[in-house]
């Protein structure tokens, strides 16, 4: 941060492993709100080991520690609500009235329970599972299309010439939450961008507008750097290891080993 007045005064610590989408959901919000934060980047191999397991007993990233409030928090959805309530006091990305406040939360819940898990399972069965199980792949691809259909329907009901956002007339944290997984849509479905978005033009335009923000660009630049530093391929598997199963076996074998380096990145 270049500003002389850091907000908040002491940096929020965010724990991440670089490959998955959820860490970037949180990093993007920190960027978009211009908050003072540091990234603790570590290897996926170590999510179930100390020190991270002491931060989040669920062993999943992201998690944050905010020394300004003394709070430790995990689950990207809960982190979103926290950052918005505590630090979006100017309501750049949120609203003050009861109705819109809860509609934003509703879409955030839909994203965390409806979008994330199904995109995640589709990605697993398509890219990481060694054996091709067509019915499972089809099941989760169907869910992805269904989820895209829901945002498409809602965006289509917005005034024709007006701004098209999920709630009200501006981008909120509810819109933002959908980006990290939709950013991987073509990859998850293993098709071209045009094919992936076919039938969902409004959702695509909505998504494109968000990935064009400078803050998302900064987050993705940081991701590329951290992925590279850990020697990871695009799918999160270390270079030199063929499959995720092989990677899991390696992690299991090294279970007793100490956690690897945690890299602290000043942003």
């Amino acid at each position, binding site marked *: 941060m270049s500003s002389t007045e850091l907000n908040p005064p002491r940096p929020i610590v965010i724990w991440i492993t670089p490959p998955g989408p959820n860490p970037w959901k949180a990093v993007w919000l920190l960027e978009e709100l211009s908050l003072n934060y540091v990234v603790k980047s570590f290897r996926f191999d170590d999510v179930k080991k100390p020190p991270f397991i002491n931060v989040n007993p669920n062993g999943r990233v992201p998690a944050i520690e905010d020394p300004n409030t003394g709070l430790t928090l995990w689950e990207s959805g809960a982190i979103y609500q926290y950052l918005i309530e505590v630090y979006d006091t100017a309501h750049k990305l949120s609203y003050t009235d009861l109705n819109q406040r809860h509609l934003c939360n509703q879409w955030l819940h839909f994203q*965390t329970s409806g979008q994330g898990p199904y995109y995640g399972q589709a990605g697993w069965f398509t890219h990481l599972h060694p054996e091709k199980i067509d019915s499972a792949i089809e099941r989760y691809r169907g869910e992805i299309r269904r989820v895209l259909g829901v945002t498409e329907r809602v965006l289509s009901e917005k005034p024709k010439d007006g701004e098209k956002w999920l709630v009200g007339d501006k981008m909120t944290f509810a819109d933002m939450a959908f980006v990290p997984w939709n950013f991987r849509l073509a990859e998850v479905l293993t098709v071209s961008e045009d094919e992936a978005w076919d039938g969902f033009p409004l959702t695509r335009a909505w998504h494109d507008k968000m990935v064009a923000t400078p803050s998302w660009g900064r987050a993705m630049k940081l991701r590329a750097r951290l992925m590279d530093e850990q020697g990871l391929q695009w799918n999160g598997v270390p270079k030199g290891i063929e499959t995720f199963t092989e990677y899991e076996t390696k992690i299991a074998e090294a279970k007793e080993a100490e956690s690897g380096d945690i890299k602290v990145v000043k942003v």
Partner: protein
Amino acid sequence: MSSSSSNIHLYTAQTPNGIKVSMLLEELDLPYKVTQISLSKNEQKEPWFLEINPNGRIPALTDTLEDGTTPINLFESGSIMQYLVDRYDADHKVSYPRGTPEYWEVNHWLFWQMGGLGPMQGQAHHFYRYAPEKITYGINRYQNETRRLYGVMETQLAKSKSGYLVGDRLTIADLSCWGWVAAYHRPDRQKTETNTMAKKQDWAGVEIDEFPHLSAWLEKVLARPGVEKGRNVPEKHTSLDFKKLSKEELDKRAAESWVRTESTAK
């Protein structure tokens, strides 16, 4: 909480997600109207319902804002629960004041249930119960994940003095998990795995006996009158019935059919 002025209307069905909201409404002692949505008739995909919830899932809830006229439609059980405590739990009977550490801890458990326990146990149900083709890998994957998630709850509950997930009281974090854990309950006798019909009486083949604090929590929450009332909306909650049955009764039930439709009118 004076509850005379509610225009709450709940659209629901007898599922782990549906009863979260009715249990909370009962715990808060709020009056509400109920419309049962028939999932077998795919009523949740009807145009009139999609107007309330474009996602076509239950539960959904409508209410009017404080002016008494402006309508609000909400879907996603987690968001509905947050709305209800924010608006109607001023005494913090089942919540904590905004901004307190406990308030945020409730939220991470709530999202943990919404994004983890619910979807993953739901997939276990799918592969174990509904999938037309038996995919062993799918069954194992989601049963193992569910077991892992139960373990995370067990660790948290083992540390808890109150027996609830966060702080000294029941919160929406507990209510959001309860219906899911209850749906996994299986009778002791199924451990033998000799009777395949009996195995079908649990919903996804994960035992909770190995999690003593979780088992105690299941009973503790069940003992609350509000939960008792709310879990039976819009019809009888049957997930836990099997455990009260004797071996003979279980055999008899297993020999009949494991799917039963209770048509208790509300």
